[in-house]
C-alpha cells in the first residue's frame, strides 16, 4: 500500500533532540542527542529497558513535551517551541495516542468515549457515523452502548484505538499498548495495529517491552541511555 520511498514524505523528524530532567539534585539525561526521521507510512517499534528514554521520545514526537535542546518537526512544521495551545492542534489533528491503561471515561459508553476528542468542538452526525464505523471495524458493533466497566481489556483497548482514530490522524503512537492484556488479546490488538498501517497507511510508532510486539513492526529500534542504537534499520542520523 505504500508509495515508493522516493515519493514518501517525512512525517516526523528529530534533530539532535535532548531532554534533561532535574530530579532533586540529580540531573537525568532522558534523551541524548537523538536524530530520527520517520517517513509517512512507517511502522516503527522502539524497545529498550526502563529509563532508556522510549516514552520521553514518544512524548516529544507526540507534541506532548518539549525537548531541552534540538528541533522536532511534525508534518514539516517545527513544533519545538510551540506554545501548548498550538501543540494541541497537532495532537488533535495529526496524532492518535493509545495508552497502556486505556484511560477511558467510566461514565461514558464506548461510542461516547470514541467521540471525546472532538466533543469540545461539537459532535456532528457525521462524527457519530464515523465513530460507529470505527467501532464496527474494530469488532465492537454490539458493544457501542456499553460502558468501559462492561467491556473486557481487549475491548477497552479497541475502544481506545477507535478514539485515537476518530480525527483520522496520520500518526498513531502507542505506549505499551498490550501491556495490560493477555498474550492472545495482545496479538489481536497488534493485528489491528498492523491493519492500520497496511490498509490505512497510518504511520505507527509503538514503544514496548514485548519482543513479540516489537517484531510486528517493519522498523525495529532499540534505545539505551537516551540514545537510539546505531545500525538499526531506517534510522537516519543527522
Amino acid at each position, binding site marked *: 500500500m505504500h508509495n515508493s520511498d522516493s515519493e514518501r514524505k517525512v512525517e516526523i523528524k528529530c534533530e539532535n533532540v535532548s531532554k534533561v530532567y532535574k530530579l532533586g539534585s540529580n540531573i537525568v539525561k532522558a534523551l541524548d542527542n537523538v536524530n530520527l526521521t520517520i517517513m509517512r507510512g512507517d511502522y516503527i517499534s522502539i524497545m529498550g529497558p526502563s529509563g532508556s528514554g522510549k516514552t520521553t521520545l514518544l512524548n516529544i514526537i507526540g507534541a506532548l513535551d518539549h525537548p531541552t535542546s534540538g528541533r522536532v518537526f511534525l508534518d514539516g512544521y517545527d513544533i519545538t517551541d510551540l506554545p501548548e495551545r498550538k501543540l494541541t492542534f497537532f*495532537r488533535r489533528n495529526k496524532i492518535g*495516542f493509545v*495508552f*497502556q491503561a486505556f*484511560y477511558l*471515561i467510566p461514565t*461514558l459508553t464506548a461510542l461516547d468515549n470514541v467521540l471525546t476528542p472532538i*466533543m*469540545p468542538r461539537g459532535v456532528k452526525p457525521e462524527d457519530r457515523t464515523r465513530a460507529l464505523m470505527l467501532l464496527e471495524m474494530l469488532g465492537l458493533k454490539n458493544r457501542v452502548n456499553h460502558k468501559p466497566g462492561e467491556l473486557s481489556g481487549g475491548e477497552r483497548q479497541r475502544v481506545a484505538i477507535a478514539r485515537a482514530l476518530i480525527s483520522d490522524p496520520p500518526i498513531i503512537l502507542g*505506549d505499551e499498548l498490550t501491556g495490560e492484556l493477555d498474550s492472545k488479546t495482545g496479538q489481536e490488538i497488534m493485528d489491528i495495529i498492523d491493519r492500520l498501517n497496511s490498509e490505512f497507511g497510518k504511520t505507527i510508532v509503538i514503544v514496548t517491552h514485548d519482543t513479540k510486539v516489537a517484531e510486528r513492526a517493519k522498523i525495529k529500534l532499540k534505545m539505551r541511555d537516551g540514545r537510539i542504537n546505531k545500525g538499526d534499520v531506517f534510522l537516519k542520523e543527522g
Partner: protein
Amino acid sequence: MLRYAFKNAFRRKNIAALSIIGIAIGVSLMTAMASLSATITDQTNKFAQQNLDSITVQQKGQLIFTSQINLTQLYNITVLEHIEAYSAQVVAVVQLGIGFVNPQLVGLNVNNDTSIGGPTSNIIEGRVFQYENECIISRMGAEFLNLKIGDNLSLYTPDSKLVNLTITGLYETSSIITQMNIYTTLTTARLFKLGFANDTYSVLLIKADDPANVNQIRSEIENISEEEGLNIEVILFEDQIQTITQYTGTINILVISISLIAGVAGGMSIVVAMLMSVIERLKEYATLKATGWQNTDVIKDILYESLIVTAVGGAVGFGIGLLYLGAVSAFFNIILNPLQPIVITQIILFVIGMGLAGGIYPAYKASKVSPVEILRGA
C-alpha cells in the same frame, strides 16, 4: 460537551449530594430573605404610589396619637387651591384583649375618608360602620386576631368605661402601618381622647389634586401657620417614605449579608466537591488533553459540571424556600410571593455566581494537568 458534563457531574453521588445540600441551604435562605425584602419593597412602592398626593397636618412636635388640632382654626388651610379633599381624624391608642395588641382606634367621617381614598373606600367584605357602636378592621388584622364580621371588640376608655364595638366590615390596604387600625365614628373615638371637643382632632389628612402640587400646598400651609400663629407641622408622604426606605434599605443590607454568608458556605461546598472530583479524575483530564482538548475545554467542562450541580442545588433550595415561605405566609397571614422577577433574577444570579466561583479553582487546577505524567504512568 454539555452532555459529557452532565454525565460526570453526579459521578460521585454522595459528594454531589452533600454539595447539593450545602447549596440548597444557601439558596433556600436566599429565597426566603429575598422574597421578604422584595415583598416589603413592593408594598412600600405601591403604598408610595397611592399616597404621593397625601399631606398630613398635625400638632407640631407630637406623635399622631398625641397630637391635638382645632379644625376651626385650620379653615383657611382647607380652602386652599389644589386641595381635592380632606379628612380630619381622631387617633387613639387602645388595648385589645389581655394587652399584647395595642392598635390605633381612628375616628373619622366616612364621606370625608372616602373622598381621600381612605380605608372606608376599600371595604372588601361587609359594610362600613354606620352607628357609634360599630367599627371596621383590616382583613389581615381579622385573620391575625381570629375575628370575623359580627364579632365584638371590647375596649376600655382612659376613664375605664367599657365600649363594645361590633365589626361590620373588613377593609384592605397596601400599607403595613394602617393594617392594624380600627376605624369607627368620630364620636366613639373621642371617648378615648379625654378633653377632645367636637372640633378637636388628631390629624388633618389632605389629598392634593396632583402629586406635583404637594410642595406648593405645604408652602402655603406653612405661610398660613406663620401668619395665624398656628402650632402645626406639615408632613408630606415623601418625608415618611424616606424613613420607610431607610428601613427597607436596612433589610436589603441584611439580605445581602446573609446571602453572602450563604454564598460562601455553598461556594465552599461546591469547591470541595469539584476539587475532590478533579483530583480523582486528573488522569482523565490528562488523557483528554493528550487527545486534543485545550486547557479552555477542560476549564469549560468543569465549570459546566459545577454549574449543573449548583443548578440542581439551587432548584432544591428554591423548593425548600417556597415551602418555608408558604409556612410563614400561612402562619402570619401575609402574602409573600417568591416568584417575583427580582427574586428569581437574584437567585439565578446567585446560583450562577456560586457555580462559577466554586468551579473556577478546580477548573484551573485540572487545566494545568500535564499529559506527560500519564504517559510516564504517574
